[in-house]
């Protein structure tokens, strides 16, 4: 891929703006609340776009493109059932507790609701995972730029890390949020033409469906398997994902999706930065709207890529294969960008890609520096210091977090399995956490001992499930089966979904049992932290389009309609 002066100019303009935003916001970073939580002053539309954007790292963009090629429209499940219901839920039911409790982070909510040890467990595992995740973002970006453009891996990750470091150091969460919104628009503008051109080349939606039929039958499935998302979910052997509807709905639709959207501080932090309770509740709901439409922007190009490979269009695009015969799915979107975009537009597309990697990284770094400073440093290392002290600590944590990310990115080049391992660890930790939150927020009888033992039980259950099962055709190792495989799953995805289900269930049951056996706190202490002991937020003075319940219903209906259209 050759870049010209124009493409470089576009990239440079983006970098200048990103840094400029950081510089311009520095003067507003007076307190630690400003730095870690934007002073709780951001309007809902901004936090809404940042909420979705923090999640939309390049791994999402590249990964969803890859999945679009590999699984077809079924990939939309990750969005239409794997995200929307959870986003509606957190907006309507959980934000009142996150925002109303004045917790400054997700672990802090756990401290307020339960006790220190539950907070500690969550804070430490989250801090660890989020900074590693940032490293993986960096690694993926370095690899992509090296493959596509021949840039030096170490050079590109250092530059990217330096840019993120500067703008987060200076402008804190606000800087990260502003740049996330910038990234959002850049992705929309950078990818929309790709969808247009790709569809044109494939002969429109009907032409695409016809080509996808070729893909499906060539792979041994019914002709609609790549273009219909629910019809073939009856059994694992009839769809390319290798899952059936129950595992999909419970594993992805419930546990993994709610576990991520409702408890992951990376996204919740953006809602916590909102300027009011109503803005905080609307944040995930506003975010749900672009989220619903993103399949057309990121999954569709992947589908087009594979469709054109099996039955080529006029422009002759094909997806290359790896030495082992499988397709280079991850290269679907980058290669399409290079294939269709002329000079100029190419600059925009590549900048959009880089922006999403950097934004993903910044999101992780801001979540890390907040959890480190408030939940680990302030709680266990140095209490009662001045606010300015913690602000300084936050800045230092930013430097530290970025340094560890760079190190992690480097280590990932040596041990490629790190990425798979991280996905695993995420599932192990997020799935049980969801049970803890649901019980904590909606059942006042849940106790700290219950929560803590539940979390441990859930994590162990996840490890056990993973250790005792294997996806078909895989060898014991990162994919599982460490204790000898007693059950085999039709696909990796199926195994992941069921690990989540087991982890959640174990945590749920154990938390209830241990809670019943231990003494709960008094009702007054739990005011504002539990559903039954908190005043319902009053929405009746708001106009209809600002009421979370109404927005949630609209969003859910729209998602259902989309599911039906692409059934």
């Amino acid at each position, binding site marked *: 891929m050759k870049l010209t002066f*124009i493409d470089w*100019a*576009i990239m440079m*303009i*983006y970098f200048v*703006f990103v840094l*400029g*935003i950081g510089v*311009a*916001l520095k003067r*507003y970073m007076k307190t630690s*609340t400003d730095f870690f939580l934007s002073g*709780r*002053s951001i309007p809902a539309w*901004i936090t809404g776009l940042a909420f979705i954007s923090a999640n939309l790292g390049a791994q999402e963009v590249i990964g969803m493109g890859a999945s679009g090629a590999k699984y077809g429209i079924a990939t939309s499940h990750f969005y239409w059932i794997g995200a929307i219901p959870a986003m509606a839920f957190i907006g309507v039911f959980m934000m009142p507790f996150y*925002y*109303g409790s*004045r917790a400054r982070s997700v672990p802090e909510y756990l401290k307020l609701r339960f006790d220190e040890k539950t907070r500690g467990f969550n804070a430490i595992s989250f801090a660890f995972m989020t900074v590693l995740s940032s490293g993986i973002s960096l690694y993926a970006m370095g690899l992509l730029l090296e493959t596509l453009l021949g840039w030096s891996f170490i050079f590109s990750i250092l530059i990217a890390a330096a840019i993120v470091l500067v703008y987060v150091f200076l402008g804190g969460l*606000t800087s990260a949020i*502003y740049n996330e*919104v*910038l990234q959002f*628009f850049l992705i929309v*503008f950078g990818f929309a*033409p790709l969808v247009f*051109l790709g569809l*044109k*080349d494939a002969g429109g939606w009907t032409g695409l469906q016809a080509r996808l039929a070729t893909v499906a039958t060539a792979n041994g499935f019914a002709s609609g398997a790549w273009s219909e998302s629910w019809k073939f979910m009856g059994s694992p052997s009839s769809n390319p994902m290798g899952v059936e509807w129950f595992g999909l709905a419970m594993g992805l639709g419930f546990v993994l999706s709610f576990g991520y959207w409702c408890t992951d501080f990376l996204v919740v932090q953006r809602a916590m930065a909102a*300027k*009011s*309770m*109503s*803005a905080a509740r609307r944040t995930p709901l506003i975010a749900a709207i672009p989220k619903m439409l993103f399949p057309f922007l990121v999954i569709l190009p992947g589908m087009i890529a594979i469709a054109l490979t099996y039955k080529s269009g*006029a*422009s002759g695009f094909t997806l290359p294969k790896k030495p082992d015969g499988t397709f280079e799915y991850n290269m679907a979107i980058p290669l399409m960008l290079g*294939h*269709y*975009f*002329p*000079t*100029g*537009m190419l600059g*925009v597309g590549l900048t959009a890609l880089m922006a999403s990697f950097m934004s993903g990284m910044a999101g992780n770094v801001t979540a890390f520096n907040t959890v480190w400073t408030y939940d680990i440093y302030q709680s266990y290392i140095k209490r009662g210091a001045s606010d300015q002290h913690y602000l300084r600590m936050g800045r230092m944590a930013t430097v530290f977090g970025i340094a560890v990310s760079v190190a992690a990115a480097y280590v990932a080049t040596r041990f490629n399995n790190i990425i798979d391992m991280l996905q695993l660890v995420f599932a192990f930790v997020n799935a049980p956490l969801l049970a803890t939150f649901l019980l904590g927020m909606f059942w006042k009888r849940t106790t700290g001992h219950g929560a803590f033992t539940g979390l441990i039980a859930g994590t162990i259950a996840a490890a056990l499930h993973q250790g005792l099962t294997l996806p078909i055709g895989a060898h014991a190792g990162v994919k599982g089966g460490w204790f000898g495989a007693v059950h085999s799953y039709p696909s990796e995805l199926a195994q992941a979904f069921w690990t989540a289900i087991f982890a959640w269930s174990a945590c749920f049951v154990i938390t209830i049992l241990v809670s019943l056996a231990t003494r709960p706190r008094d009702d007054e202490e739990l005011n504002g932290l539990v559903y039954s002991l908190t*005043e319902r937020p*009053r929405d009746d*003075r708001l106009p209809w389009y600002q009421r979370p319940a109404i927005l949630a219903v609209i969003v859910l209906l729209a998602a259902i309609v989309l599911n039906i259209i692409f059934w």
Partner: protein
Amino acid sequence: MQLDIRLPIGLMFTLLGALLAVFGLIGDKSVFQRSLGINVDLWWGLVMLVFGGVMFVLGRRGTATARLADESPEGKKIDEIDNAGLEK
């Protein structure tokens, strides 16, 4: 009261859009063979330019009204309702 996000976003897209559109107008047209013969740079550049312009204008008006709204008695009342029962 803070920097209105629409200002930098508007500015950046105006700049990018202008760059793209100008190139699309006066640059070497053979590069558009890739994009199925369509001058993506010109058309999309114009779209981005308009988007950037709109954002920037909204941002300027937003900054002005936000300043006024924050200080008005109504603005303060709304702030109270929004945050009923919560300390900052």
